[in-house]
């Protein structure tokens, strides 16, 4: 099975697992909220609520187990990158939406139960402001300070400077772009850490100490996450700069992504656990109830709130206020990005499986595939070689799929070459001109050999 299968398949399983955990965890009361509905203390412990949660979990189990089984279907495409990617993207797509169907259903049922039992908090829909919390600085959490971010920033800058001393070839430029990008990421993380720190404190009920503790916890975990992520980014830059090879890039990227993921998941799980424990006894007196502003308990819509970005009610995430034009725009962008995925997959399959066409006519070699075309005048060709085995290569710019390599590649022993081949079907035709080199081929070995013979005659 290809390497990509072992990357994509566990990734899709992880997405399913994460969504499963988040939604199942929503049945545990945190800050008086279950399945996106705020309930008083007696409501959270009632038999009816427990029954609704049980039914929801049953449906969640069925859907997520089915998604895991469906994702196993990717085994049939284990050697074909574009097909695996398309299949598993479809699974991920379904994983993002399907489990939320029972969530929304039981959110509505719980809200109906809340109305039926008259568990409506008199303060529901009102803005709660704890003056003590704001005044006495009970939150007592300090922004870690820019000094924590200065070290990774300096490391990243040093790696970037070092990168300019590397031998400049086509692959080095990719390294430099990455180093610049990482520097930008560190600056962005630093700015975001300040932004997050300044978010409003979390008010749960009249207990100022509880509200202060939850706010402190949230800020602490965010601070820690930002710092870990900036250091990870800096170390990633060092690895890429010191060992600029494809293997280093793959291994270090994996390690970086893994660190970010572990930090994010650990922090989220820890915060949820603390929110659960600390708010176990809340909900007997006045408590915050913003259900009216949360569509299905998921989407925040509050025209009275001046903020575009707000804390999620549970966990440490942030969400967007859809009542604001900027919020609507951001949501539209996110939706567009998700909807582009199927189009991208279709495009990739077309790239991979549409036959290539190479022909020689009027002393010109024309290589054509979908919207790409290379036109090479035989008069310009100084050397032509039939390459029986594809040399090891690095993609500089272009597409590298199972059946299609197009763009600029760097071949061992040959250097950079504009490439237009099916890497699975040797031989390949290597052409040198004054301006560029080319590596071309068709989907048929015989056809490639015929074309080479034609080219050779003209070149001689």
């Amino acid at each position: 099975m290809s390497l990509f299968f072992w990357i994509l398949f566990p990734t899709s399983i992880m997405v399913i697992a994460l969504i499963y955990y988040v939604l199942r965890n929503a049945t545990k009361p945190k800050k008086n909220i279950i399945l996106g509905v705020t309930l008083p203390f007696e409501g959270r412990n009632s038999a009816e609520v427990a029954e609704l949660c049980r039914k929801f979990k049953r449906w969640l189990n069925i859907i997520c187990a089915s998604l895991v089984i469906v994702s196993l279907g990717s085994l049939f495409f284990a050697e074909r990158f574009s097909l695996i990617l398309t299949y598993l993207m479809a699974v991920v797509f379904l994983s993002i939406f399907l489990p939320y169907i029972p969530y929304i259903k039981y959110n509505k049922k719980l809200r109906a139960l809340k109305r039926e039992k008259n568990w409506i908090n008199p303060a529901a829909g009102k803005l709660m402001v704890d003056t003590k919390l704001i005044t006495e600085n009970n939150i007592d959490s300090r922004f870690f300070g820019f000094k924590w971010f200065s070290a990774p920033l300096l490391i990243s800058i040093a790696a970037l400077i070092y990168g300019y001393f590397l031998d400049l070839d086509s692959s080095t430029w990719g390294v430099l772009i990455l180093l610049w990008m990482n520097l930008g990421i560190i600056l962005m993380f630093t700015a975001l850490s300040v932004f997050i720190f300044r978010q409003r404190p979390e008010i749960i009920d009249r207990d100022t100490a509880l509200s202060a503790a939850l706010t402190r916890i949230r800020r602490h975990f965010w601070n820690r996450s930002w710092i870990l992520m900036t250091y990870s980014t800096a170390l990633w830059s060092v690895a890429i700069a010191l060992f600029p090879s494809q293997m280093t890039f793959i291994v270090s990227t994996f390690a970086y992504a893994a660190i970010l993921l572990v930090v994010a998941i650990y922090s989220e799980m820890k915060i949820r656990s603390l929110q659960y424990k600390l708010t176990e006894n809340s909900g007997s007196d006045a408590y915050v109830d913003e259900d009216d502003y949360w569509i299905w308990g998921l989407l925040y819509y509050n025209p009275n709130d001046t903020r575009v970005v707000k804390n999620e009610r549970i966990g440490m995430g942030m969400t967007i206020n859809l009542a604001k034009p900027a919020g609507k725009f951001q949501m539209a962008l996110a939706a567009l990005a998700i909807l582009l995925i199927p189009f991208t997959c279709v495009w990739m399959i077309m790239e991979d499986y549409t036959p290539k066409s190479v022909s020689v006519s009027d002393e010109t070699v024309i290589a054509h595939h979908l919207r790409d075309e290379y036109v090479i005048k035989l008069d310009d060709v100084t050397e032509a070689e039939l390459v029986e085995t594809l040399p090891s290569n690095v993609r500089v710019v272009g597409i590298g799929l199972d059946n299609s390599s197009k763009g600029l590649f760097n071949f061992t022993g040959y250097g950079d070459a504009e490439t237009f081949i099916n890497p699975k079907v040797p031989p390949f035709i290597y052409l040198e001109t004054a301006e560029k080199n080319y590596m071309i081929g068709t989907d048929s070995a015989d056809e490639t050999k015929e074309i080479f013979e034609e080219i050779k005659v003209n070149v001689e």
Partner: protein
Amino acid sequence: MLLELDFSSDTPIYLQIRNQIVKGIASGELEADERLPTVRGLAEQSGINMMTVSKAYQVLKNEGYIKTDRRSGAIVAAAAADGSQHKGLGERERNALEVIIAEAKIQGISREAFLTECGEIYDKEVIK
């Protein structure tokens, strides 16, 4: 103390802030010389317009419930908190009471019932 602000209410937000702080002083939740958030702090942390918060504080200051200082912000006036501000009902309070009494009479509530209810509310607000 916890302010509960209702954006769908007919009562303007600045008045809601003012009324709840007054209730907080009356109930003892806000004590003499207790600090309140600064105008900017309250506005930033609640999302309420700064002008609205400023107006509420101005009204409270004019009525003698709080004192404000540019550096230290707002504090509950000692005279307001310890009940020594016994000047009798002002004209505004009398006018408001007249409307409430008129509505009670229209609804057929007797004088005794009205006074009993007033007593219950009074006892709820004042705990010292």
